[in-house]
């Protein structure tokens, strides 16, 4: 299937709910994984993969495809869910996540499953990869866009700022970084562990365009991505304020759910909450 397509608000809500259910089920079945930061990224991924990324689930090497590079690669539950749900592979495979022999490795490999552009898992590296992809496409006169999903944890790595510096230096306006800014990391509040505030000023002083949105508001996500496509001469950072664990009441804003799988009971409780409200 070829994307982008246009979805209604209701369809976006349904797809986001489906992803959140996948995330809870996958991490429960695996007995490990990262639900918190997966749940915070869901709404952006739903909009991006359906309504903005140019891609074809039948042809992963399509020359005209846009490139999606994940910097926060621990959110494999969200990554694999969106890839399965847009049609890259059978969603039944999701429950093999993190199991021996599975295509769905704990952190993604470039070679599996279908739809993954780049391996990753070590923070700080893939914003540089995205910069290189954007530079390579621009160098070859290609119009493809590059999207990178990063986070404030990823931005604590010094290399990320090397990438941010170089992307601006090479005026990579074909690059858009989405910051899933959920304010929590493994050891607690980001501002207690190692403050990154003010992220917008940092990006601005590195000569990036900056857009600030609510990362759970479909319309704001859509408007920001639309705007990013029109801005010339600089890369764009969309700083999306999000809630870690979004959608599951007992996981929301809890650092403890960064890298912990729900028990069977917790999964049932979460799935009961993840229903379309009338």
């Amino acid at each position, binding site marked *: 299937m070829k994307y982008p397509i246009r979805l209604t608000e209701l369809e976006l809500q349904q797809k986001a709910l489906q992803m959140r259910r996948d995330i809870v089920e996958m991490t429960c079945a695996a007995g490990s994984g990262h639900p918190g930061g997966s749940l915070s990224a869901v709404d952006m991924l739903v909009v991006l993969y359906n309504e903005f990324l140019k891609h074809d689930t039948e042809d992963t090497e399509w020359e005209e495809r846009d490139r999606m590079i994940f910097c926060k690669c621990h959110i494999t539950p969200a990554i694999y869910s969106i890839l399965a749900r847009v049609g890259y592979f059978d969603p039944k495979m999701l429950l093999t996540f993190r199991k021996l022999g599975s295509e769905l490795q704990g952190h993604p490999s*470039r070679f599996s499953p279908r739809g993954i552009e780049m*391996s*990753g898992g070590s923070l700080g590296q893939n914003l*540089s*990869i995205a910069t*290189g*992809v954007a*530079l*390579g496409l621009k160098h070859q006169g290609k119009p493809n866009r590059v999207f990178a999903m990063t986070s404030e944890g990823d931005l604590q790595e010094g290399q990320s700022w090397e990438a941010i510096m170089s992307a601006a230096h090479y005026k990579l306006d074909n690059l858009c970084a989405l910051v899933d800014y959920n304010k929590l990391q493994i050891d607690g509040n980001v501002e207690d562990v190692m403050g990154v505030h003010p992220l917008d000023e940092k990006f601005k002083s590195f000569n990036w365009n900056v857009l600030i949105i609510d990362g759970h508001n479909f319309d704001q996500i859509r408007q920001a991505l639309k705007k990013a496509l029109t801005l010339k001469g600089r890369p764009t950072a969309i700083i999306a304020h999000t809630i870690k664990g979004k959608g599951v009441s007992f996981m929301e804003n809890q650092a403890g759910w960064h890298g912990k799988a729900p028990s069977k009971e917790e999964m049932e409780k979460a799935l009961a909450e993840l229903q379309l409200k009338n």
Partner: protein
Amino acid sequence: MAERELMLARQGWADALLELGEKNPKVVVLDADLAKSTLTCLFKDKFPKRFFDMGIAEQNMINVAGGLSLTGLIPFVATYGVFVSGRAWEQIRTSICYGQLNVKFGGAHGGISVGPDGATHQALEELTIMRVLPNMTVLAPADYYETKKAVLASVEINGPVYIRFGREKTPAVTKPDSPFEIGKANIMQEGEDITIIACGTMVAESLNAAEFLATKGVSTEVINLHTIKPLDKNTILNSVKKTKCVVTAEEHQLAGGMGSAVIEVLAQNLPVPVEMVGINDTFGESGTPKELMRKYGITSKDIIEKSLKVILRKKSNS
């Protein structure tokens, strides 16, 4: 000792890049503010649009190169060996090698012969920390001609290749038409009594040692092991079956380097007495290349001493 022309190995790297630049529009070059030193400045002058200055930010440079490779380009990255292999090691491991990205690394200023810059700039660990990485090919060519051939051959491999070369002019021990194949060690001279296995600048020192040993009636086989990985086990084992003793010689830490790669093969297949010439678990210091090579025990004289010792060990075993 044989008179050999002194040439810069890094010029071989630069000349090969120019040749590749002409032949293949996909070849691009990145440097971290050392273009004048790694001589990638020559490529920059000729192909300015295909040269990317990345500033003094090696980790980013390596991964940007990885990103470029994902768009079909063939990036060559250059900086000093210490910085490319060391500072960006985990980038090379996780992004480049695990991702099997088609990036070529020029590790300039390898070895203690970097000289007056001192210990911080003398790369002595790259062979160890590069060869431990799955999917990596590791080359340590012997001179100008071989460095040029190594760079040209590296584009035939779809994956990461690390090429180590030094700073100083070194004797040309090969010729423009000498054979070079990645993964195939070259026998520089045949002999019966001992096998000396060397790479990089130590090939010239080994040939000088062999020349002296001949005057003492010792027939020496000298192997130029320009490819550290994948290792040419057959050439090594076939030689050692005949000579039954080995000296390894490298301008590199002994732990885990070329010599270690050789003894891993020997210990498992053909255990024989081995002596090793290399840097013995210490950092270097400032000095002229010659002074340093003498002080740290990596000259032909050291190879001769170890050779005579290992032959005695062989005799006392039999």
